[in-house]
């Protein structure tokens, strides 16, 4: 049970991400998370399975839909939720928010908002880790919308050229905001990896055991010094791109498509592998964790406005104010 790959641990993490996101949407509605969020409900098996293969020393670069990545990488739900709520107790002291959270102690280096650019940042991190010795790996997670960005392909090229220990993870949830993959992606996602000589495969992203098996192979390849891999996980988000869709009521996805993917709910798939009493115990544990995080977030203070430009520079200069009264 201590191994993150244990079926109970996999279920517990999926459940944690699911409930964390559901309660976060409640906090968006309540005005506690003012930015709104990009929820990953429906996609939980991907970060859960991928991160189960990682050590705390491995590095992950996330995306704007990253709450699940952080939780699966071992970040504290309390400080992640406080960050999303813009509180000073957040892991980034309220400077990262829901969109750009990082937690360097847990190996989450950041989530750049520029879609796809994390792929080349990941290559640089991987190069430095390899220089340090050891067998640490870097995972770069992005969505299907990122594969049409040139910077991502530049990252693929460098990772392949330098044979870097990177695992590229594409969460293909079918839509770049409102644009269907078929309308945005010429060729295939895995074809992009293959063009750079990167072993690439398309994998079911709804069954966490399948995700885990694919990730183990890719991570092992990186650890062995055999270079990068690309895993395209076919998955689906049950919610909108962003919580603004709660009001916008966009109609870019057919209801029957949503229902078909709901029939392959990653939480239900993994729950079916566990005895009922075990599941109930894990669910209760998760509720306690999530409710504690909610309390911690909403009861935490906001940052002091006087400190708005703290952390901009490591050393000097103090920025001049917008109004000069001298």
């Amino acid at each position, binding site marked *: 049970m201590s191994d993150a790959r244990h079926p109970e641990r996999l279920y517990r993490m999926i459940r944690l991400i699911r409930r964390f996101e559901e309660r976060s949407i409640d906090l968006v509605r309540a005005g506690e998370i003012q930015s709104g969020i990009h929820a990953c409900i429906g996609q939980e098996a991907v970060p859960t399975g991928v991160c189960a293969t990682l050590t705390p020393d491995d590095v992950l670069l996330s995306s704007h839909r990253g709450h699940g990545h952080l939780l699966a990488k071992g970040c504290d739900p309390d400080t992640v939720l406080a960050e999303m709520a813009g509180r000073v107790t957040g892991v980034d002291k309220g400077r990262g928010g829901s969109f750009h959270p990082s937690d360097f102690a847990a190996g989450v280096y950041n989530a750049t908002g520029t879609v796809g650019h994390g792929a080349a940042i990941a*290559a640089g991190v*991987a*190069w430095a880790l390899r220089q*340090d010795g050891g067998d640490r790996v870097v995972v770069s997670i992005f969505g299907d919308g990122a594969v049409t960005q040139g910077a991502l392909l530049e*990252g693929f090229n460098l990772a392949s050229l330098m044979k870097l220990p990177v695992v590229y993870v594409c969460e293909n949830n079918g839509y770049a905001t409102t644009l269907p993959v078929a309308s945005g992606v010429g060729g295939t996602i895995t074809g992009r990896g293959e063009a750079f000589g990167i072993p690439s495969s398309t994998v079911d992203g709804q069954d966490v055991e399948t995700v885990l098996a694919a990730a183990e192979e890719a991570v092992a390849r990186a650890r062995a010094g055999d270079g990068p891999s690309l895993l395209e996980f076919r998955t689906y988000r049950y919610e909108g791109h962003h919580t603004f869709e709660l009001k916008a009521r966009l109609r870019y996805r057919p209801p029957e498509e949503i229902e078909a993917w709901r029939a392959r709910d990653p939480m239900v798939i993994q729950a079916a592998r566990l005895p009922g009493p075990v599941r109930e115990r894990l669910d209760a544990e998760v509720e306690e964790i999530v409710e504690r995080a909610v309390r911690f977030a909403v009861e935490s203070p906001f940052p002091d406005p006087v400190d708005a430009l703290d952390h901009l520079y490591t050393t000097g200069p103090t920025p001049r104010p917008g109004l000069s009264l001298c």
Partner: protein
Amino acid sequence: MPKLSYLKALNRALGDEMERDPSIFVLGEDMHHALTNVTAGFMERFGAERILEMPLTEQGFTNFATGAAMAGRRPVIEFQIPFLLLLVFEQIVNQANKFRLMSGGQTSVPVTYLCPAVGWRAGWGAQHSDQVHALFAHLGVKTVVPATPTDAYGLLVTAIRDDDPVVVLGALASLPLREDVDFAALAPIPLGVGRVHREGSDLTVVAIGHQVHDALAVAEDLAGEVSIEVFDPRSVHPFDWDGLAASLDRTGRLVVLDDGNRSCGLAAEILATAAEEMRLVAPPKRVTRPESAVVGASPQLDVALLPTRQQLTAAVHQVLKT
């Protein structure tokens, strides 16, 4: 005393720092042949693990440097041409320079972006001739524009040692400069500390980068009629506002000479700050490229757009009249 060229000063600063700190590495294009000469001899001296030959993938390798920096390295990227800094503006401004704040201080991104070739060169055309220092200053990226070989050495050393992203811009017009130098006296120069190249009592000329030398020539030409102080901020962000205020306390008159475009340029900020906060006894002037300037490829057209010593002389005379 031995002579030190501007280019050799950059080479020497980078080499000295790499000897001192093994976390420093260089990445850029045509490294095996040290095309710009900044890294001349480095492939043999430091090896391919510290001198990274990169393909034409500027956005990719600028992000690569950000990643390596967050993992404890001190990358120095060489860009051969100034427009490449616009190509990677996103990577520097919106990513590297924001990651420390966005992480609440968890990380630093100590990357040096070195372009030893900004500004105009005859016939190189519209896309190779820009001055980009004001853009970085506007968005808060630490940026230095050394005017002399000694300052090029000292500011590049400081940029590399700084824990944040720093842009180092050497003007093409500065590269042939040579200076008598005591090598033992070469030292880091702090960011945000300007230099008075020539003291004067009637009027301050603030000049940026290679135009410091134009300002000094004009000051010498006009020495019989006016006492001009030549102030070189050296770093454009942070800017030595205290140094400028002290100079204006002495002179009360100001002309800014800047090879950037006029609108929203560095000269505009210097004039505005001086007008708001400093002692001026006459309206100040600036001498810059025209608003919206795009140089072409015919040198005869291009030089008509660059600030000249004649324009500076005219501006000095006008400010003295009021």
